[in-house]
């Protein structure tokens, strides 16, 4: 894969949290124009991987490069993050429109005011996800699917090249799911690359064309058709990896001095 083709390259990335290995010696590269599934059992480090790519978490070793050899600092404006739904306070007094507008804060810098162009971009993003009529509704009144679409609209407004989405399909209705998949495919068509932490193995082959399978360490990565095999699924989710999880837990207990 030539440098121009690689949109994200992860090199021997290791992340630790509380003295436990959460991600371990990950090395993979992802080409452009893909919808990438990130799968693994609970605690595999999928959200951590997203956050490390985003720069929110600092790895203990290894690095992440973008579009060839560029570090995060050069491209952070081109990456948009769609967090898990539960990480937000849904009782906050704010409308859908204002949430999407937040996506523009990054471009505005510290003290500049919101401009007309920003407001129009926000409305357009809402229209793209089919939520134009709900623009001035309080977020507390949105359904699960609408909440998810709202976050995607906020990501859209940042006009990024890379999308990082943490479990966007969890807890939403079928219709919203279909809409979101359609949006992702449109984005891919426009040259974007999307990373999605996904939990439903049944829909992996339908929605995605590239996959990263991990369970603290990298199990497999590559094109869906060749990588998402029975053998790899076994390796990733199967009983064999249970021992590894046990060992990680044990190691954590020893290093923290806790006994059961």
């Amino acid at each position, binding site marked *: 894969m030539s440098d121009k083709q690689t949109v994200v390259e992860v090199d021997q990335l290791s992340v630790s949290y509380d003295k436990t290995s959460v991600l371990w010696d990950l090395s993979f590269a992802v080409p452009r124009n893909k919808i990438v599934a990130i799968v693994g059992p609970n605690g595999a480090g999928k959200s951590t991987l997203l956050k490390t790519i985003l*720069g929110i978490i600092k790895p203990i070793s290894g690095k992440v490069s973008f579009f060839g050899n560029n570090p995060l600092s050069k491209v952070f404006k081109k990456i948009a993050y769609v967090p898990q739904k539960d*990480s937000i306070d849904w009782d*906050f*007094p*704010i409308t859908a429109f204002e949430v999407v507008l*937040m996506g523009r804060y*990054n471009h505005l810098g510290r003290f500049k005011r919101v401009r007309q162009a920003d407001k129009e971009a926000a409305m357009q993003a809402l229209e793209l996800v089919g939520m134009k009529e709900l623009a001035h509704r309080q977020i507390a009144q949105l359904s699960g699917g609408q909440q998810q679409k709202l976050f995607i609209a906020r990501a859209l407004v940042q006009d990024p090249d890379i999308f990082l989405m943490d479990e966007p399909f969890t807890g939403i209705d079928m219709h919203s799911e279909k809409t979101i998949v359609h949006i992702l495919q449109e984005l891919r068509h426009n040259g974007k690359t999307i990373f999605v932490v996904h939990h439903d193995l049944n829909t992996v082959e339908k929605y995605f064309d590239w996959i990263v399978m991990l369970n603290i360490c990298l199990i497999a990565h590559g094109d869906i058709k060749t990588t998402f095999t029975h053998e790899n699924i076994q390796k990733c989710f199967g009983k064999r990896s249970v021992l590894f999880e046990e060992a990680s837990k044990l190691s954590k207990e020893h290093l923290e001095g806790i006994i059961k």
Partner: protein
Amino acid sequence: MSLSNPYWHKSFFAFLKLFLSRMGDLASGKLAFSELAVDEVQLFLLGAIGVSCALIGTFLVLKKQTMLANALSHTVLLGIVIAYVLLGLVSSYTFASFPVLLLAALISALLTVFFTQVFTHVMRLQEDASIGLVFSFLFAIGIIFASVLTKNVHIGIEVVMGNVDIVQLADLRLALSLVGFNLLIIALFHRQYTLTVFDKSLARSYGVPVKFFEYLMMFQTAITVIGSFRAVGVLLVLAFLVSPVVIARLFTNKVATLLGLSCLIGLGISVIGVAISRHILSVYQLPLSTSGVVVSLFVVVFIISACIHLNKKYFYQLVKKQKTAKPQAELSNS
């Protein structure tokens, strides 16, 4: 300050009328600042405190950290004592010196937040227990220090309760600078505050230093509490922080409106409170604590607002009935 109080024996509306005319005089230069009556000083003071508290209170409520602010208001006592000892003075009524208060605010904020973090993260204690334990511990130490140093527990009580009825012009200057400070911080950082409160991950992904703003909010709270304690005492300041916001929240769903409305409510009720307090004194010969009156007013306004809020549908129907009643009446007439 004038020796004879022009507001003596004035009832509520007479008070307001007199106040407005005197403000007119003040604006046109006929009245000097040093000639302000006690009531006016109280009014400005409580109004300023109302605004300051409403400003930072909005974000505390949105962040659901009001109990932490409660803890902070308790440890302020210890902070003041320590600042005092550090700066070498041990006397009870010269608290108003600015460096003492500033240092006290810093110490209190740091103590509260630091100990709470230690209990929650290092000792793995659940958060509600950490907060409760920290502030009762630090407050107990503060009381013991205060009692020992001043040889008199009653002074401790005065600090805690405050007494707006004996404030002076110098306190007003402090309160006004506090308002200025709060306005400045909110004006500069409201976007960062909103982001930090609403969506930490997004804030972090934008490179906003979340920890810094959380500490800044705590420091802002501490300094507002300390700046207000002379007038309202550390225990009542909590009411000023929370009540206007809680009332305003019943009427609006926008952060900007919440900020503005809370300030108005904080200011308005403080002003009316002073007037009512004077009224009760003049008409019923009942001397009551003015800050107590203001807080009670907060409660009354809250109850009324809650009723309106809960019966919104009822009110809407009433309005609708009026609108539909009219054309029906016309129909039946023709």
